[in-house]
């Protein structure tokens, strides 16, 4: 039973006051090192908001001001050109900065400004897009807080009324340990195992889990309940709209997924392959095979499993059986499995890429 009240609180309009004061301090510190800004924030906001909440909003501010990776390249180049033996008088110093400026096509003052541009505490405070709105910081701080809780979760329950396609796809793409079912009100339920319930690759799994959180911004009705653990203390996080989250960004271009690669390879072997066949109901649970393959007059369903435990695989196979599907093949990523040695007729272990001839052999 998940309690109604949650101990972990997200950010909302009531935080706008102190976030506004924080932004005033930021504007006063423009051009100064972040270190100075952090000291001012620590002293200026003490007593107005809990240190952890201030830290979360400062983290959101860093994210909003962005651009660190690009600056890192330039800053390292600037340092390699400018820093060397001591320039003990002004002339020697000016000459060196000017020479570096010439090489980089920059004014000497800009060269100096870039010296520590990649260092978290030394780079100058800038707001390239102007003063952000408090609500923007709240949205990113909320995202960060939910993702943090998810990384420390025992279990996660997500209920979505509406199109859950992207969420389910993400669960599949990242190979998360999830049971997907239809709820009493027709909603989609995702019961996802948290990293703290595992003993293997918990950090990697936790990071993969966080991919679900940004997608919540597109849901008009949902509930998310996370049972998590911080330093041995069990806590709950309950999230439901209205909650401020940043808009969903289009994902960066990625290479083909394991499933896409397999479809391509099987296509080349002239097999009839259907990508993302319709979900299969097994009791209240929904199963999402990745492919359907016609082979020797039999329709086989193939599901690619990422993170797994022996119980998880047993349960999945049993669910397919309960749904009346006998011709099913689970392709299991051995690198993300707790016991990559289990053997069963319907299991095919793989690493990185599924071997199409192996699949064909298994179907035979």
């Amino acid at each position, binding site marked *: 039973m998940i309690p109604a009240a949650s101990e972990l609180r997200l950010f909302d309009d009531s935080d706008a006051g102190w976030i506004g004061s924080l932004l005033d301090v930021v504007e006063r510190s423009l051009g100064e090192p972040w*270190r100075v800004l952090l*000291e001012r924030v620590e*002293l200026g906001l003490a007593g107005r908001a809990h240190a952890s909440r201030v830290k979360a909003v400062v983290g959101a501010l860093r994210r909003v001001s962005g651009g660190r990776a690009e600056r890192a390249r330039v800053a390292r180049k600037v340092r390699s050109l400018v*820093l060397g*033996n*001591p320039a003990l008088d002004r002339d020697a*110093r000016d000459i060196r900065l000017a020479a570096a400026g010439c090489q980089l096509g920059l004014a000497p003052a800009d060269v100096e400004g870039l010296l520590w541009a990649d260092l*978290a505490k*030394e780079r100058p405070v800038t707001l390239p897009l102007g003063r952000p709105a408090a609500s923007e910081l709240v949205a990113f701080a909320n995202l960060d807080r939910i993702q943090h809780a998810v990384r420390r979760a025992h279990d996660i329950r997500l209920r979505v009324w509406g199109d859950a396609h992207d969420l389910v796809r993400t669960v599949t793409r990242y190979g998360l340990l999830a049971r997907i079912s239809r709820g009493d009100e027709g909603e989609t339920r995702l019961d996802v195992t948290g990293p703290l319930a595992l003993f293997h690759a918990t950090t990697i799994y936790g990071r993969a889990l966080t991919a679900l959180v940004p997608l919540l911004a597109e849901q008009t009705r949902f509930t998310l309940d996370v049972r998590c653990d911080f330093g041995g203390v069990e806590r709950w996080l309950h999230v439901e709209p209205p909650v401020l989250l940043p808009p969903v960004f289009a994902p960066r271009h990625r290479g083909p997924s394991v499933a896409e690669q397999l479809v391509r390879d099987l296509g080349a072997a002239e097999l009839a392959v259907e990508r993302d066949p319709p979900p299969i109901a097994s009791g209240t649970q929904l199963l999402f095979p990745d492919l359907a393959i016609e082979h020797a007059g039999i329709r086989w369903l193939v599901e690619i499993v990422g993170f797994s435990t022996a119980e998880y695989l047993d349960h999945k196979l049993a669910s397919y059986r309960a749904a009346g599907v006998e011709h099913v093949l689970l392709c299991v990523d051995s690198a993300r499995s707790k016991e990559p040695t289990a053997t069963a007729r319907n299991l095919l272990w793989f690493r990185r890429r599924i071997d199409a001839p192996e699949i064909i052999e298994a179907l035979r």
Partner: protein
Amino acid sequence: MLEPESSEEDPAQIPGAAWDEQARAWRVPAERHRELIVRMADSSVRYTDNVQPTRLANEWTIPALRWYQEAALGRWKAAGNRGVIALPTGSGKTLVAIAAIARLGMAALVLVPTRVLLDQWARVLAACWPYPIGRLGDGDHQVAPITVATYASAVAWAGRIGDRFGTVIVDEAHHVGAWCPGEVLEMLAAPARLGLTATPPVAGGALGERIGPVVYSLAVHDLTGDALAEYDDVSVPIRLDRDERERYRELRAKFSTVYAKVVRANPDAGWNEFIRVASQTADGRRALEAWRGYRALIAYPAGKRAALCELLARHAGARTLIFTPDNATAYAIARELLVMPITHEIGRVERAAVLERFRTGEITVLVSSQVLDEGLDVPDADIAIIVGGSSSTRRQVQRIGRVLRPREGKRAVVYELAVQETKEVEYVRRRRGLDEAKRAAGGVS
């Protein structure tokens, strides 16, 4: 595992034994393995022992040890192959440890605090031992009969590989019980344990319990002119100018008033407690701001700027390390004089490239606050300029050690800039007092 049915002794009576409900067996911490074996042998208890560390082939190429290295090793052996050897930075502690591993001939695990030291140890061991060296940390997970692990990786691995080694070496052993958790050593069965440090901690504590007592200790002055270069220790008094002095006094007074008030109300309050209390009131927050302000002021006032430039000009071309009290001062000096800072924020690749340029003499000055103190293989340097010290004798010893690598005809110089009428002078006085006391108590212990 002790099998209760085959044991004629009550396992509950064994020190450290606990019943493991999950395994349905008695568990004893791995570090008590040898003690347990002896006890069972004495009591004629039948047992199976699967802890069998690999024997190392005697194919070492090790340079001859110096007199004090031999002496240190002798004391360690006499103490039952357990204990801490304290030798100054640059005097060859690593070589002592390698000789210990070679002489015992048992698989060894070397624990180090940082990734930089992991690389360093792996490199030195590979030069003395013809087989692959295992590495745990910095993305590597190879276990070999001789393995180097960072403290952090050892926390994760000790439970799995703790039975494979007969010898454990802990570098920078003064961190045992803090950065290097005692539990790591508890999970290792290795009976031979050697701690290495330049600054032996006070007796007892986690280090004494897990590794053993300090069995051999030499200070810098014991080896100067022999294994370490001769050096001059020069104090450079710095005066604040009038404006700085007034500002210092004003800030100091603002801080002291509140500090005194808090301490009067809570006589047992430590510094952390003071910060907690002070940050709850506007006056307290102003006091903390004043504290930061006056520390920043004396960290790098105009007098230190001038003195630093003068010293760098005097020793132009000599390899020089500048030590600062904090990163902000390191960056300020780096920006003003266009010299390279070495801080934890400077990435590994860039840092290695800079140290290489320093090694080849392409650049002759580096500035750092803490990164150069310990855990980094800094090339030979001749001059150390301590722009801001602290009360820590340990830090001072590490810093001085950076310029003491011996070379024909070398005489290093250590300058310490201290602002008069401030805490800095007190720090220098206190440290010097401690040094004198140690010297008076007798060098070799």
